[in-house]
Each structure stands twice: as structure tokens, then as C-alpha cells.
């Protein structure tokens, strides 16, 4: 298919349809409302369901219900909306149902603002809801990558029977860029007969399925947690994704950055290179599982004297960078909140201060 110029939010909606997801329940919030606007028109065209719930809380339990029935389902929201959904996300993870959530982040905490932010790193990667659960978190840096990640998210959520979170910042939703959709990537839902409450009339086996997150017996609850943990360990083995930039050079500083922020870093790295200063970058594409090994290896290269996490937050991913580097080098942080995205010039000045 030829390239089309599309706004990130609309491309995310189209990508979900092309991934075979025909159920979308949502509640509008800036800066991602165009997903709902787009799908309110598109879903009926393809025989899918568009439903605007009365609140994010209601939407999140509709997602749980549909997922428990074995339907491919997703929603999109932005930071405060994801907070409201976090209870259900914990339930969905505990009950081992697949679902896809997209968070087009805006500034927080509280109602914050509507401009781009990456301040929900902790919420997505470290918890958000209660209990020992993890989300597989993917962070796109372009509209094209958002499309690809949304399309991969559905099969991944089914492989692990766990929610997948696409974590983009406001610019990913609001920007228009050329996108190319794969011609055929529509994958049918995997066989869910052995766990989904999809109705005895349609099922091949006679086994009754139960979807639940309540385990009053301590041994059963511990056992469920061990099952979840095993899946998260498997994700660490099989799903880590990242890109490196300028790491063939003899860099003296290593940047770690994701999403839109990583593109600003790329421009800064290019300019510094012209000035004779080599800087490398690791860009995590999955935030959980985090590319610890890649960051550690890149930081360990001879000549590298400092590592810095560049993020549109007050310093969240930096903790994972520190954990990866394990004290072998000083780890710094530079960032901003509020929607004022750091410019390449700011990154250059900060990087120079580390030399």
C-alpha cells in the first residue's frame, strides 16, 4: 500500500482495525480524542463496535468484559483517563485476559495540561494499579512505529494473556507523518477455548471456564502470582526491543531516550557530531521489558564516561537506566514537564556539560 499522510491518532485507530480488532470502547480526552472520532466513523464501516462509555472507569470494565469473552478489544486515553482505568487494568492482568491500552500522554500530575509528556513512565512500567502485575509497554517514536506497535500489540497481548500498553506522548497522537500499512497483517484471534468465557454453545471442549481475579486461598493467590511472574520473565527473554544510534562511534556520552524525546536527541547527536563530539544513544522500544543488557553494554564501551536519561518527566526512566548501568558510570537526568519539549539545543548544552 502507498504511503498516506495521517495524524497519529487516526493511524492508531486504523492500525487496530487492520490488526483485526473490531471492538473499541472509549471516553474522549485531549490529546487523543481523534482516535475516538476516527473510529466512530470507521468501526461501523467494517462491522465493528464503537462505544463511548459514560466514564473511563466504565470503559475499562467493558474492556475487561469483552476480553474475558475472548474478543479482541482496545481503548485509548490520556494520562488522567488511564489513572481511572488502572483498577481494571490490574484486574485484567490478574485474570489473565488480553487487551490493548493506548496512553497518549499529557502533562500531569492531576489534570495537568494537554501538551506532550512522558510522565506516566512509572504508572505504565511500574504499576499504576495495585498488586504484582506488569504490562508489556511499547513506546513508539513516529506515527509509522505507532501503527506497527499497535498491530503487534494484539498478538502479543494474546500470547501472554496480559494487557499491552502503547505509551506515546501527545505529539505522537497529534503529528501527521507518512504511514504505510502492511497489506495483510490481520491475524485471527488465537484459540481462546481453554480460558475464555466465550459460551459453551460455540466451544469445542466441555470444560467450563472461569475468569476471575479473586483468590481468597493464600496458596491459590500465590500460585496465580507465580504464573504471572513466569510470564513477565518470559517477556524479558523474548520481547525486549530497542534501537541504537551512533553507537559505532567512539562516543563519550551515552543518552537513553524514548518516544518523541529520542528524536530530539537524534538531532542533537547529529549536530554534536558535526562539531566533532561523538554521542551514542539507546532508544528503548519496549519500556517493560526494559533493554537493561543493551544499556549496560553500551555504557560499558571503552571511552564512554557518562550516561544520561533524557525524558519529558522529572526523572522516571532514569531509575531503570541506573539499575541497568549498576553503578559502573555516573547516570544523569535531563528533562522537562508541562508540554515544553526540550529542544536539540538544550540537549546539546546538557550533553556538553557532561564532557
Amino acid at each position, binding site marked *: 500500500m502507498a*504511503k498516506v*499522510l495521517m495524524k497519529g491518532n487516526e493511524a492508531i485507530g486504523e492500525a487496530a482495525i487492520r490488526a483485526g480488532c473490531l471492538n473499541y470502547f472509549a471516553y474522549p480526552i*485531549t*490529546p487523543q480524542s481523534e482516535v475516538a472520532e476516527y473510529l466512530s466513523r470507521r468501526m461501523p464501516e467494517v462491522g465493528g463496535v464503537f462505544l463511548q462509555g459514560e466514564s473511563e472507569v466504565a470503559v475499562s470494565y467493558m474492556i475487561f468484559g469483552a476480553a474475558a469473552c475472548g474478543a479482541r478489544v482496545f481503548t485509548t486515553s490520556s494520562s488522567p483517563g488511564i489513572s481511572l482505568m488502572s483498577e481494571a487494568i490490574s484486574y485484567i492482568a490478574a485474570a489473565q485476559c488480553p487487551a490493548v491500552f493506548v496512553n497518549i500522554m499529557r502533562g500531569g500530575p492531576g489534570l495537568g*495540561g*494537554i*501538551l506532550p509528556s512522558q510522565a506516566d513512565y512509572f504508572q505504565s512500567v511500574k504499576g499504576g494499579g495495585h498488586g504484582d502485575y506488569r504490562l508489556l509497554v511499547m513506546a513508539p517514536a513516529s506515527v509509522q512505529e505507532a501503527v506497527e506497535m499497535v498491530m503487534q500489540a494484539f498478538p502479543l497481548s494474546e500470547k501472554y494473556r496480559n494487557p499491552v500498553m502503547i505509551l506515546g506522548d*501527545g*505529539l505522537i497522537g*497529534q*503529528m*501527521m*507523518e*507518512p504511514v504505510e500499512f502492511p497489506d495483510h497483517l490481520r491475524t485471527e484471534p488465537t484459540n481462546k477455548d481453554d480460558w475464555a468465557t466465550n459460551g459453551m454453545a460455540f466451544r469445542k471442549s466441555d470444560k467450563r471456564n472461569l475468569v476471575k481475579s479473586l483468590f481468597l486461598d493464600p496458596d491459590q493467590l500465590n500460585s496465580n502470582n507465580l504464573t504471572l511472574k513466569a510470564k513477565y520473565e518470559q517477556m524479558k527473554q523474548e520481547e525486549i526491543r530497542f534501537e541504537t544510534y551512533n553507537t559505532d562511534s567512539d562516543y563519550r556520552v551515552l543518552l537513553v531516550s524514548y518516544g*518523541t524525546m529520542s*528524536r*530530539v536527541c*537524534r*538531532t*542533537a547527536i*547529529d549536530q554534536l557530531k558535526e562539531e566533532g563530539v561523538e554521542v551514542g544513544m539507546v532508544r528503548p522500544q519496549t519500556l517493560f521489558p526494559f533493554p537493561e543488557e543493551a544499556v549496560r553494554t553500551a555504557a560499558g564501551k571503552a571511552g564512554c564516561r557518562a550516561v544520561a536519561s533524557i525524558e519529558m518527566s522529572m526523572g522516571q526512566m532514569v531509575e531503570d537506566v541506573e539499575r541497568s548501568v549498576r553503578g559502573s558510570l555516573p547516570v544523569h537526568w535531563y528533562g522537562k514537564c508541562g*508540554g515544553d*519539549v*526540550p*529542544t*536539540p*539545543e538544550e540537549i546539546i548544552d546538557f550533553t556538553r556539560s557532561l564532557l
Partner: protein
Amino acid sequence: MQSEVMFAGFGGQGILLSAKILAQTAMTSGFEVAWIPSYGPEMRGGTAYCTVVISDRPIGSPIIRNPLHLVAMNRPSLEKFAPVVKPGGVIIINSSLIPIGAGREDVDAVSIPVTDIAKELGSVRSANIVALAAFAARSKLVDRELLKECVKAEFSKKEKLIPLNLKAVDAGFQAAQKN
């Protein structure tokens, strides 16, 4: 080689649309493009601006503080953004609404009464297309015929607007070349 073009004006002047058509035309010509709107909490009638980045390689930072070019549709936009345009860029000034110049010697500043030209063509609403065409003529970033194709495609669902906007493209080119 990368060019950044900022379109700025009042909300309602078609800033986002003319920027989108430029991005579409550049993409069709084979460039990498990004269209970045300002989506802050603006009032109706407040300032709207939008940046288009056009490059021959993958686009890094979508955040542009110093664009190479500016298309200013109203006075506040010119006053705000003319000082940050890079030397050597083009500044299109809608002189129907802006009685002042860019105040820069190191740029190609062109005053064109795009709103008046659009009114003469039949609708003030095509002023954004006149300005876009004038910019295309001056910057030589995109081809005139391709621009027309993209204008046609953009208005394909409102066919009756196509002739007016094609005339607006020609008028914009002519006005830019006269200057």
C-alpha cells in the same frame, strides 16, 4: 537538507489545512515530512500555528524553535515569529492584514495581499491557498502542478471548491513572481 515552514495566523484562517497540503505535496515529491500542529489551549479566534518539516532523510526533532520559513497570515504571528526565522529563509507577509514589514534584512520577505486577492477570486476563505502558493513559488520547495494535484485531492469531497482553489494557486504564484 531540511526545511521547516511555519504557518501562523488566526484560528479559522486555514493554517492547518494549507500546512497539510504542503506536507502532502512534499511527501508526494518523495520527501520525508512531518506536520506538527500547535494544539495548546487556544481561544477561538486566537493564534494558530503549525510547522511542516520537509527533509531528504528521516526527520529527527519535530520540535522546531527556529523555522527556516514563515507564512504569516496576521500581525501577531509576524511579530511573534519573524525574529526566530533562520537567515536565508522566506517570509510571506499577508499585507492585507499586516501593515508592517518583517524587519529583517537577512531573509526573503515578501508582502502579498493574500486576503484581498482571495476576495477578488470569490472567497476570502481561499486566502490560505493563495499564501501557500506564493510561498511555494518563492521557496521553490514544491512543484506548481503537483501542488495543484494535491489541492484537488484535498478538496475531492467538496468538489465545487476545487476551481476556486486552483485559481488561488495560480494567483499566489503570480503575485509572488511579480514581487
